[in-house]
C-alpha cells in the first residue's frame, strides 16, 4: 500500500472533514454518544479565519465501521492514536485541539505523546475519570451505574442488528437511508458504541494530567449530570499550564445549548497570547 492510500484510509476511517480559510488548524472532536454533528453550531463560526478539522471517532457517526478493531479501541489509547494519525495525514502543526467530554483525554494523551503538534487544548465539559475513588476523588459514578448504562444500551440497541446494521454497513448510504440512520438515536453499531462507553467510563487518566505540557483551558459547565463541579477544579489544579472557566451553560453539552457563549470562550482563549494566559504551575 502506498503512502497516499494510507493517508486516504485514515481520512476515510474517521470521516475527516476540512473547511475554513485560515492557516491555523482548529480540530473539534466530539464526545460519547454522538459524532461531529455535535459541533455544528460552533465549528462554522471558526471557518472565517481558521482551518477547521472535524472528525468522527472510530465506531461513531460515519466512521468506517469495517476498520473498527475491538482490541485497538478497548481503551482510550487507540482513539488517541487515531487523532495523531489524522494530524499526521493532514500534515498539521500547532493544532488547537477542542474536545468535548471524554475526547479531551484523547487530546491530552495525544499531546503528551507528540507535544510539538499541539499549541492549545480546549476542554469542554471535561473529566479525567468518571468513576468514584473515594475519599480522594469523586468522578460521579460507581461501577454499578456504568453496568446499568451498558445494560440500557443493550436494550436500546437490540433492534440494531436486524434493522439498522444493513443500512450502516454501506459506507455511503443513499440520502434516504442516511436520513433513516441519522434520525435514529441508536444509529451506531452497539458493539462499537459499547466499546467506546467502556473505554470512556472505565478510564482513569488522572495520573497523566501533570504530564500535559500544552496550555489548556478547562471549561466546566453548571449542573452537568456527567461531570460534578469539583472535577473541573481537579483538572485545573493538576494540569500545569491550565486556565479554568465556569460556564453559565447548564448540562453536559454547552456547544449545543449555549453555542454562542461556548464559541466566544474558545475563540478568546485561542487568541489570548501566552502571556495573558492564566497559568498555574504546581
Amino acid at each position, binding site marked *: 500500500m502506498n503512502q497516499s492510500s494510507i493517508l486516504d484510509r485514515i481520512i476515510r476511517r474517521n470521516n475527516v472533514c476540512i473547511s475554513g480559510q485560515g492557516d491555523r488548524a482548529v480540530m473539534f472532536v466530539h*464526545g*460519547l*454518544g*454522538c459524532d461531529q*454533528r*455535535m459541533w*455544528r*453550531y460552533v465549528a462554522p463560526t471558526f471557518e472565517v479565519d481558521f482551518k477547521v478539522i472535524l472528525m468522527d471517532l472510530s465506531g461513531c457517526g460515519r466512521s468506517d465501521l469495517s476498520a473498527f478493531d475491538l482490541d485497538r479501541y478497548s481503551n482510550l489509547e487507540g482513539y488517541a492514536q487515531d487523532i495523531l494519525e489524522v494530524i499526521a495525514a493532514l500534515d498539521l502543526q500547532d493544532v488547537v485541539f477542542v474536545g468535548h*467530554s471524554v475526547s479531551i483525554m484523547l487530546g491530552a494523551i495525544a499531546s503528551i505523546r507528540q507535544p510539538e503538534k499541539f499549541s492549545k487544548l480546549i476542554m469542554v465539559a471535561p473529566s479525567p475519570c468518571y468513576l468514584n475513588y473515594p475519599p480522594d476523588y469523586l468522578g*460521579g*459514578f*460507581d461501577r454499578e*451505574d*456504568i453496568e*446499568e*448504562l451498558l*445494560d*440500557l*444500551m*443493550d*436494550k*436500546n440497541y*437490540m433492534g440494531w442488528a436486524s434493522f439498522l446494521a444493513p443500512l450502516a454497513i454501506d459506507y455511503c448510504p443513499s440520502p434516504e437511508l442516511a436520513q433513516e440512520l*441519522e*434520525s*435514529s*438515536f*441508536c444509529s451506531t453499531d452497539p458493539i462499537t458504541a459499547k466499546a467506546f462507553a467502556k473505554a470512556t467510563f472505565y478510564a482513569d487518566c488522572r495520573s497523566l494530567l501533570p504530564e500535559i505540557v500544552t496550555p489548556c483551558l478547562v471549561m466546566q459547565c453548571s*449542573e452537568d*449530570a*456527567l461531570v460534578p463541579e469539583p472535577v473541573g477544579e481537579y483538572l485545573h489544579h493538576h494540569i500545569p499550564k491550565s486556565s479554568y472557566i465556569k460556564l453559565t451553560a*447548564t*448540562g*453536559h*453539552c454547552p456547544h*449545543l*445549548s449555549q*453555542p*454562542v457563549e461556548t464559541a466566544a470562550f474558545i475563540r478568546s482563549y485561542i487568541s489570548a497570547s501566552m502571556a495573558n494566559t492564566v497559568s498555574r504551575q504546581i
Partner: protein
Amino acid sequence: MSDILEFAPCGYIRFSETGIIERINSTLANWIGAPKHAIEGQSIQSLLPKAGQIFLQSYIFPQLKFSADVEECHFKLLTRSGERIPVLGNFYWSEREACASSNDDRTNQPQLDGSTTLYDVIIIRAHKRHQLENALVLAQQKADATVRELKKSNDSLGRFANMVAHDLKSPLRNINRLAEYLSDDYEDLLDDDGKDLLKKLDSTSQQAIYFVDKLLEYGSLGAKGTLEEVDLNRVVTIASETFSESMATTGATLQIGRLPTVMGIEIQLVQLFQNLIGNAIKYRSPDRSLIIDIQATQIDEKECKIWVKDNGVGIPAQYQQDVFDILFRLHGKDLEGAGIGLATCKWIVQNHLGTIGVESNIDEGSSFYFTLRSIDR
C-alpha cells in the same frame, strides 16, 4: 393541561431545553411517588438513575437537538422510594407542527434569542416487556458466545488438519523416495511380483502426496474454498488411478467421453469421482464385466451435467432417494464401506452449488449424474 391527559394511562412530561420539568401529569407523579408541585421546576435528571442521566445527556439530547424525535427509548424511572420502573418513552419536540411549516429549520438554528425549546415525553410502563427483553438479551449473548466458540473450535480444527497434513507430507515423500531407491538399486533382485508391488508402492505414495498437497491447498483457502477452473479430464485420470489395480483384476473397463472444464475445487472433484467409480466397482454385477461410462452434456451456457454410468446390480427404486443420506447402506454388511461415500458426493456437489441424483434399474445398472458450473466462455 387537559383533564384527559392528566389521568391518562400513560405518563406525560414537558421539559425545557435545559432539562427543567415544566409540567408533569398526575399519572406519572403517582408513579414517582411525589406531588406534582414537588417535581415541576426540577430537572428531568431527578427522575432518572445515574445510568439514565448519562444516556439522556449523551444519546437522547443530541438526537433531539439535531433532527429527530426519539421514539421507543428504553430507560428507567427512579421513584422517590428508590425503586426503578422500566419504561418506554417517546420524546417529541412540542412545536413540531409550527416547525414543519417553516422548512424544518430547527436542525440548523440554535435558539439564539433566549427563547427555549420544549419537549413532550409520553411514557408507558414496560415491566413485562423489560423482563422479556432481558431474556432476549441473555439469549442473544449466549448465542453470540456459542458462535464465537464454534468458530474458534472450527479454526483450531482447521489448523490441526493443516498441521497433520504438513507432518504427513515429509514421511510420505520419504516413502516415495525409498521406493525409488529400491527400484533403482534392487529391482533386478526382485521377481515379477516383487517388481509389481514396488510399482504399486510408488504410485500409491505419489497419490498420497497429491492428496496431502491438495489438503494443504484447500486448508489455506479456508473452508469455503475458491472456485477455479478445473479440467475434469485430468480429475478423472487422477481419480481412476486409485482403482487401476482393482479394475484390472475384475476386468472392468472405463470409458471416458470428452469432459469439460468447470469451476470447482479440484481435490473435492477428485474425491467425487473416486467415490462414484469406487461405488461402481463395489456394486458390480457378478454376471458380466463392469463397464463404467463417464460422459458430459452441456445444459446451457452456465451449467453442465456429468454422468457416471455402470452396468452393475442397480438400486431398487424405493431406495434411490436415500442413497445420498449419510450412513445409508443398501447392501448390509456384505460389502466394505463406511456408508458415507455418496453422502460425501452430495456434500461436494452442493458445495459447488450443483445438484446430484441417480437413475437406476435393478440388474441393469445405475447412472449417477450431477451438475457443475461450466467456465464462462
